[in-house]
């Protein structure tokens, strides 16, 4: 039931773009994205509720392809502060149970 993320790790230079993918073998009710800094708790970034939905906040955006049971997170013109581990999370239809993806470690270097 755990979503699979790819890539597992990525290293970027400041200003470069990155895409993180999240896919599930089961139907997705909603997709959440979180970022976790080392030693800290995950922080909610955004939620996508419907297939075809796209959202964005500053230079971080996401899309949700319900039919393909996958979501992608887009980081544009990356900044040093973007470094961390990104997790996607998916919910069962009832919404009470959450399953987090395997995680993607993102490192932005000067």
């Amino acid at each position, binding site marked *: 039931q755990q979503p699979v993320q790819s890539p597992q790790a990525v290293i970027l230079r400041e200003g470069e773009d990155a895409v993180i993918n999240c896919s599930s073998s089961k139907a997705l009710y909603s997709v959440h994205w979180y970022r976790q800094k080392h030693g800290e708790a995950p922080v*909610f970034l955004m939620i996508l509720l419907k297939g075809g939905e796209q959202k964005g906040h500053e230079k971080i955006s996401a899309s949700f392809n319900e039919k393909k049971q996958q979501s992608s997170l887009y980081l544009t013109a990356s900044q040093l502060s973007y470094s961390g581990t990104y997790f996607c999370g998916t919910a069962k239809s009832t919404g009470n*149970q959450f399953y987090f993806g395997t995680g993607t470690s993102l490192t932005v270097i000067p």
Partner: protein
Amino acid sequence: SQTIHQWPATLVQPVGSPLSLECTVEGTSNPNLYWYRQAAGRGLQLLFYSVGIGQISSEVPQNLSASRPQDRQFILSSKKLLLSDSGFYLCAWSVRLREGREQYFGPGTRLTVT
């Protein structure tokens, strides 16, 4: 605004000792509450979730248990800790009736079983 507290922040316990971790939420009513465990360098494993007082659902059979004695209080316990119980324990809450129900995490408790 909503706030979630967890304590203690760090804990070192010997194998076989009991465990009690507490989580409280402020500024919201009737939240869904969750306990997760994160092993070093790994992802988040859902342990328990609760949709109301006294209502606990377990995701993974283990030597841990959870209780929700009050609406905004969630407790994780163990009678005898194992080495494999070491990890970063995170409590989270979500708004029960909101579609999608994004989660907000507490600061976590780092548990080392020796």
